[in-house]
């Protein structure tokens, strides 16, 4: 019934990307263009006591040097709100360069605009800044005794603590308790394309921003509020985005700074952040510690879970990545307590990053589960099977769909789990200790709050264009949308073009939280179905149509033709209908109204991860040999894209486990490894044999196309599977990420 959906359609943007023809936001051709360079604070706390820009202003080619003294004032500083809400979505409740105060290292303190990027960059080095420095907090341990439990986190969307049952009592009564503390280094996204914005004012109230973003509408609404302009004054275009991983999910300062700079110099201005600036300009995954206690019966059945997280947030916001959501519902446990503890520090507000929250929260839970398995003498997979919950433990509601058991079974088959000798340090090949480990993967399905819209137009030659304001940042969403539209219209994919990447297009919430494809996909589906139905209604109402008088419910579409379901030889093409009725095109604007988050079902994505590692017995080097990930993401729109994304997620999990760490120098209040040479992400040589499979689940609760998203679930559990495999190989538990070799010497 769905010839295009599920098929392995190659990326519709692939050809342009491999030929270098895609235009990224720092490559858009603009006449009269100038270039901006941002100067960042070298201290983490204090104020600018003096700033001398005279030499920079005199430098060749310089058009303006903007500081807090002459930078345009913003109309308002909107509060942080995750972009999933579909409203203005600033990354933090603060806007820089409005006064002399400094709250974190890397805070923008000046913007230089010049005729070339080289001249702007040179002039930026000529600015002399004097600071008054005050003590800064940049590490969790520096101010841990001042931790507080916030009322709400995550821009107010989630409570600061949650509980059910009586954890203290249940833990006291438990036959077995596992208690562990896990520490996580801060992480940075490091997409290959650093963020960039180009601002062009056509008039005092007509601004176009070419921006590298996960949500053109979010940028439009946020910049509008900051500049005090109505949204109709601002158009945001995002032709191509070179990866994001959460760094472009919220709206940070650069599009607004570049708009203010462009207004100041009266010419278009381009601002491309440097790699180093990407470490202080777009948030990060915060430094954190998680304390977990599992109480269980002697057979491993869980009776209680206590999960506390301590993390560093900014001076402005109660931000913690929501690490406690999936762990709270992963298994049957009647007694639960989850609490976020925050420490205020001198940092930009942390943000979403690669399976935000669950990548760390499920690491803690799944490593503790591995300890529990060892303590009660049950195979780790069997322990999880015993604790699978058929309902959402937080509400008692049924899952909209699960598939977790099938994921475990399929992963075990693909991996060969059942041959495993549970004894740690039982396998050795030369210098290498060999171990295997597993973990569950869960990621919550978050529904967009606001209506999602799309537009579809069918021309009288039988081709269709479908539009929605989503950007393509590497997920393949334009390709998947082509498939969704082609199927509903009964057209081959090559006769459908999907257009996105502009805030002028129908409004779609930023593509975040694995909800991007489901949001736009549902809107596109609803829209093209309505277009199809209109065309069918026209045909059956037309005296000259072979379908005249037919019941619309009995008309199908296929190969560009509307035909009777029971007599496929009776029908006509869209083109015939439109030509005959002298209709150039038919267009529909459609809306999908997402269901409320609490619609009587628990909605989660499930999966299982397994990994085999080798650990050099003397040198401590850990290498991952193979990974198996099996996931149940509802329906799979495009197997190739979905598997690529899941595989990418698993490799990011490998990075989280073994490599990724941003190192703070607390004396300077600045990161000490802000480069791709020093912040290690996995390279091809690190990539093991990765097997990805999906268990498709029918789910008509989540959305009309039955998809739960594949953007993050591949990350979740991968690091835990690796850490558990390291334990199996060596007999040593890893309580700190990343697992670097000195921890195993």
């Amino acid at each position, binding site marked *: 019934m769905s010839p295009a959906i599920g098929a392995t359609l190659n990326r519709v943007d692939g050809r342009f990307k491999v030929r270098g023809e895609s235009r990224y936001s720092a490559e858009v051709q603009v006449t009269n263009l100038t270039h901006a360079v941002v100067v960042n604070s070298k201290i983490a706390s204090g104020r600018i006591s003096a700033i001398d820009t005279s030499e920079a202003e005199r430098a060749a080619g310089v058009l303006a040097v903007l500081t807090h003294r002459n930078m345009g004032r913003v109309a308002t500083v909107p509060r942080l709100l995750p972009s999933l809400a579909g409203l203005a979505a600033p990354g933090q409740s603060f806007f820089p360069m409005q006064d002399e105060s400094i709250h974190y290292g890397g805070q923008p303190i000046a913007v230089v605009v010049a005729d070339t990027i080289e001249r702007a960059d*040179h002039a930026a080095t000529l600015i002399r800044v004097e600071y008054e420095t005050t003590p800064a907090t940049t590490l969790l341990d520096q101010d841990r005794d001042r931790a507080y439990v916030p009322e709400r986190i995550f821009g107010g969307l989630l409570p600061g603590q949650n509980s059910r049952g009586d954890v203290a009592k249940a833990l006291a009564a438990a036959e077995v308790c596992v208690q562990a503390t896990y520490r996580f280094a801060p992480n940075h996204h490091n997409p290959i394309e650093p963020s960039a914005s180009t601002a062009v004012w056509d008039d005092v109230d007509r601004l176009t921003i070419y921006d590298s973003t996960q949500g053109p509408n979010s940028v439009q609404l946020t910049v509008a509020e900051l500049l005090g302009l109505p949204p109709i004054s601002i158009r945001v275009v995002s032709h191509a985005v070179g990866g994001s991983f959460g760094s472009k999910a919220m709206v940070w300062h650069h599009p607004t700074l570049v708009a203010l700079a462009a207004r100041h110099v009266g010419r278009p201005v381009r601002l491309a952040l440097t790699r180093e600036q990407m470490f202080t300009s777009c948030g990060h995954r915060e430094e954190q510690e998680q304390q977990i206690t599992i109480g269980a019966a002697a057979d491993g059945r869980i009776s209680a879970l206590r999960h506390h997280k301590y993390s560093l947030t900014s001076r402005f916001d109660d931000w913690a990545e929501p690490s406690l959501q999936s762990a709270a519902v992963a298994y049957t446990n009647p007694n639960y307590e989850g609490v976020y503890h925050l420490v205020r520090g001198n940092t930009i507000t942390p943000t979403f990053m690669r399976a935000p929250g669950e990548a760390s929260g499920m690491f803690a839970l799944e490593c503790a589960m591995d300890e529990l398995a060892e303590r009660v003498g049950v195979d780790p997979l069997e322990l999880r099977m015993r604790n699978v919950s058929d309902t959402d433990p937080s509400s008692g509601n049924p899952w909209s769909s699960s598939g977790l058991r099938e994921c475990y079974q399929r992963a075990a088959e693909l991996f060969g789990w059942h041959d495993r000798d549970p004894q740690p340090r039982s396998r050795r090949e030369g210098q290498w200790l060999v171990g295997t480990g597993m973990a569950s993967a869960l990621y919550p399905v978050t529904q967009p709050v606001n209506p999602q819209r799309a537009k579809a137009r069918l021309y009288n030659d039988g081709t269709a264009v479908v539009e929605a304001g989503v950007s393509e940042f590497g997920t393949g969403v334009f390709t998947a949308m082509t498939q969704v539209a082609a199927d509903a219209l009964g057209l081959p994919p090559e006769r459908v073009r999907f257009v996105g990447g502009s805030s002028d297009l129908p409004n779609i919430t930023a593509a975040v939280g694995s909800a991007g494809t489901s949001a736009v996909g549902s809107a596109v589906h609803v829209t093209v179905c309505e277009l199809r139905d209109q065309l069918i209604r026209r045909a059956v109402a037309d005296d000259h149509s072979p379908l005249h008088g037919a019941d619309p419910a009995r008309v199908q579409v296929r190969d560009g033709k509307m035909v009777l379901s029971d007599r496929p030889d009776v029908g006509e093409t869209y083109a015939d209908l439109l030509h005959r009725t002298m209709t150039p095109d038919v267009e529909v604007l459609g809306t999908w109204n997402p269901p409320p988050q609490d619609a009587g079902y628990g909605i989660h994505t499930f999966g299982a991860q397994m990994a085999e590692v080798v650990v050099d017995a*003397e*040198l*401590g080097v850990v290498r991952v040999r193979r990974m198996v990930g099996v996931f149940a993401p509802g329906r799979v729109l495009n197997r190739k894209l979905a598997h690529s994304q899941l595989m990418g997620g698993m490799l990011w999990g490998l990075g989280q486990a073994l490599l990724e760490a941003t*190192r703070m*120098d607390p004396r*300077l209040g600045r990161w000490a490894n802000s480069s791709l*040479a020093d912040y290690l992400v996995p390279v091809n040589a690190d990539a093991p044999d990765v097997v990805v499979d999906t268990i498709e689940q029918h789910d008509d609760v989540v959305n009309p196309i039955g998809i739960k998203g594949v953007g993050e679930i591949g990350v979740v559990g991968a690091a835990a599977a690796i850490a558990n495999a390291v334990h199996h190989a060596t007999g040593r538990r890893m309580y700190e990420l990343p697992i670097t070799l000195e921890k195993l010497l």
Partner: protein
Amino acid sequence: MRPISYSRVSDVGTAIGTVAADPTSAFLAGGTNQVDLLRIYVEQPRRLVDINDLPLKQVEELPGGGLRLGGLARMSDVAEHPTVRRRYPMVSESLVLGASPQLRHMASVAGNLMQRTRCTYFRDTEVACNKRSPGTGCSAMEGVNRGHAVLGTSECCIATHPSDLGVALMALDAVVQTESPAGQRSIPIDDFYLLPGKTPEREHPLSHGELVTGIDLPPLPVAAHSRYIKIRDRESYEFALAAVAVAMSVVDGRITEIRLALGGVATKPWRARAAEAALDGAPATTDSFTRAAEAELATAVPHGMNAFKIELAKRTIVRALTEMTQREGSA
């Protein structure tokens, strides 16, 4: 970037004459490290003299059995050169394990020897660094120093020398050939690298405008039985946490010839002379290897995060020697 003038020269005399005449000038070869440093204002020459057209790219036999690597020979060309691979496998291996394929295609071997430390504080012009700004202090001493040196350090500097090739050349006693307006010189590789001492800004005994024209590998039969092993967090494109270059011959279970050098743990490519002395004539056993490793690292000085490197270096030495012995045995 600051305004920089650029010229491209095609003969050695003009190249060294031009640079020697202008103290604010510098040679530009592959540029893979230098252009980075220009971009972050750590090096600020006003004039770049591009020497990529100089006829210094050959790998040629020397009378007496040695091999001369032209200063401008690319890392990838030397790594793949059949004679290098046959007679000096550790040189080829050290090159292949360095950088990335793209960088190896660009970078010259002379530039590889001359590359600067990747110490984060050296690269940050806002903070104290005795190597970059003599007399300002060392930020690494109590800073983020997981990658820093434990051997050859001073109270002024603990920056690690990043070259892999240099480590292999140190084990081989290679000789660096230079040319300046004062004439040609041959500098033994050990003298080509200076310890930081009180002058960490001075890394080589070269005068301004003196050009590395070639690197001579001596005739050394034992080098045919050599290898380079490199320990690091990720499998590619990362500097060493510890590396060992070793050439060894074992006769009747005794070590008759040994060349050993360390990388990733010292302020210069580090010839492990104490270990060599302990190994020379000793039985090729784990005991000997362990004693030699202990001897070499006896003077190591840890600084916080890098303390693990002492143990890692010892174990890497033992690993390299053990593998060499096993290979010798099976050969």
